[in-house]
């Protein structure tokens, strides 16, 4: 195993299920035999604020947060939050983003405008960019709530971890009755990347 640490950032809006996705990702890394650390801020996460979760894995991980400007992969659940977090990435990083816009309070109240063409702007800076319509694909797979698993599938192709560890982590973390839908969502996500 090399000394390389892989730095992943999961970003979005409180209530989107980011913490569970980060749990599945960390579990996968542990099952694959890596050291792993995961860090985020709780407390405000249910109140619709921005959420950033850090997952780092490798032979030995020290800092629980991704050093500034060293993110390898951005895993975005919402477009503006994905764009906002580009500052955390290293040049040439991979961006996997959900094609979903959730307006913040100032936009809801008509005081500010949700920025236009964020997907285009992300693609300009980070050519390794995968835009995923997580909601649509998850609906087709049988449940809109599996959108995060679609994204996880897309991210999984960019990491050096065998598929069986992902499937085992999903089986461990996802409730039994939702498992089939999530495995299907994961497979579709994986085929996109």
């Amino acid at each position, binding site marked *: 195993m090399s000394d390389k640490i892989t730095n992943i950032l999961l970003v979005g809006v409180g209530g989107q299920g980011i913490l569970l996705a980060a749990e599945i990702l960390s579990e996968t890394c542990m099952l694959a035999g890596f050291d792993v650390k995961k860090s985020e*801020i709780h407390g405000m996460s249910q109140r619709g604020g921005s959420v950033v979760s850090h997952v780092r894995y490798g032979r030995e991980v020290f800092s629980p947060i991704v050093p500034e400007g060293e993110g390898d992969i951005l895993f975005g659940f919402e477009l503006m939050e994905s764009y906002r977090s580009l500052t955390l990435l290293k040049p040439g990083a991979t961006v996997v983003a959900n094609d979903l816009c959730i307006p913040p309070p100032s936009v*809801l109240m008509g005081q500010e405008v949700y920025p236009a063409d964020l997907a285009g702007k992300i693609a300009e800076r980070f050519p390794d960019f995968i835009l995923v319509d997580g909601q649509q694909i998850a609906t087709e797979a049988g449940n809109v709530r599996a959108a995060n698993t679609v994204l996880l599938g897309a991210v999984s192709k960019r990491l050096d971890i065998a598929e069986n560890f992902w499937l085992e982590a999903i089986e461990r973390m996802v409730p039994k009755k939702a498992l089939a839908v999530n495995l299907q969502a994961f497979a579709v996500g994986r085929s996109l990347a």
Partner: protein
Amino acid sequence: MKEILSGNEAIARGAYEAGAKVACAYPGTPSTEILENITRYPEINSSWATNEKVALEVGIGASFTGARALVTMKHVGVNVAADPLFTLSYTGVNGGLVLVTADDPELHSSQNEQDNRNYAKFAKVPMLEPSDSQECLSFTKLAFELSERYDTPVMLRTTTRISHAKSVVELAERVTGLAEPQLVKNPAKYVMLPGNARGRHYLVEERIVTLSKDACSMPINRMEMRGSSIGIITAGVSYQYVREVLPEASVLKLGMVHPLPFDLIREFASRVDKLYVVEELDPFIEEQVKAMGIAVTGKEILSLCGELTPGRLRKGFGLPESEQSAVEKLPGRPPNMCPGCPHRGVFFTLNRLKAYVSGDIGCYTLGFMPPLSAMDTCICMGASIGMATGAVKVLSPEERKKVVAVIGDSTFLHTGVNGLMDMVYNKGAATVIILDNRITAMTGRQDNPASGHTLMDDPTNAIDLPLLCKAIGVQHIRTINPLDLEECERVISEEMERPETSVIITDKPCVLIKREGVFTRGKVLAVDAENCTGCRACLKIGCPAIEWVPSSGKKGKAHIDPLLCNGCDVCRQLCKFAAIQEAK
């Protein structure tokens, strides 16, 4: 067996493995999940206390019978618990007692970023500081052993990045064979009257000297010798940043940050050319090293404010920083009250009535945010009522009417009730609104003495808030539906006019409560685009379910997201054009 655990989960596991019999806390970010996770171990009697002082007293009582007890709180909670803590230092323990303080550098979810290492020095008790989840587990177990070996409470300090970070942990079995708890009579040790306490003080001073000597050979304080050019003394999460950013540096990693292992520090200092201390917040270690007459660099290059990050450490050491791509200013995404939150109508009304709002700590502190913008002060748990009393003592009768204290049910029972007793006793002419949403919401829906359930989810006695206020002597107590704007405005303005103490209690639950039969979602509302004139009146409550949909120029219409709407009906009451109706 290996598991990925957060620092908080690992502390809970550590207490279990150490054979703890009692765990007690008041919720507070970032400490809350310790007690929530300890409920997985039925061997431990776990409970939410009314406040941190009571939590520690419960722990002390259990310890004196010989049981191991864990008490947890956020950093500012130790301020509340400081009174018993300082004398507990004198009595010492019987069963091990571990007090977890979860500090919050960077104020991710707090009103200040005080450095509670100072409490260990002030109270003259040892403090351990873990650097990851594995150490959270092993240090918790060690803390119980040290507590009994040295007859002292032991503090375990985490920070947000330790409490809420997850890493791989090796689990073990629970210890067995600890003595059964029983009543112990030993007044010379446990009754701190001056005659007894004077003698105990000498023991406290001897204890800290012994601990400092013994700390030099404790494996949790270790020298990691690499190059000799730079040596860094560090602890907690800062250790991880040092290893990340300065992998070649020699490190003295302190697992015990009070008392310091002075001889070990001297030895380490002698083996490196240049000595640094890397620590968050106060120069706690640095000042003590300087007092030893050793040259050391610390806060000259690192801030006294905020948390450390790998980037901030690089900057302090003059290392090249990673290139970061800039992004233009984007609309912010602050936290907000939920759709259907029962607090929203009250703050909308207080804003309309131009009240001076003496605020408190909880979800309703978000009433500060625009467009509600109805909070003028916020200091600490329970402060709203006492501060309102203070203000009305000196204001003109006209200004006095504007003073309204707002406080949640859990915060009221935490320390607000004392403020209300004082207000009644001293005839304070202010209005107090108890925002009773049946839960401790901000920290993630914990039960409290008014919710009718314990931490273990067992049904229990629920404090009757109107009766409690009556017993205190409040003459004017009114209960209102906070989702009825007309009622809110009528009752609150009447009570603000009254030149006496009055209490208004709201009676709608938090929308996030999952327990059956508490919160019921109302009928989802929708905007009839035909009738909507685009007047924006419904936007003034800042509900996340209501969206302004612009058309050309300044025109536009409101839209309600049917997935988010909880049917509280507040926006419908604001629409003069009957454009908001039940969704079809």
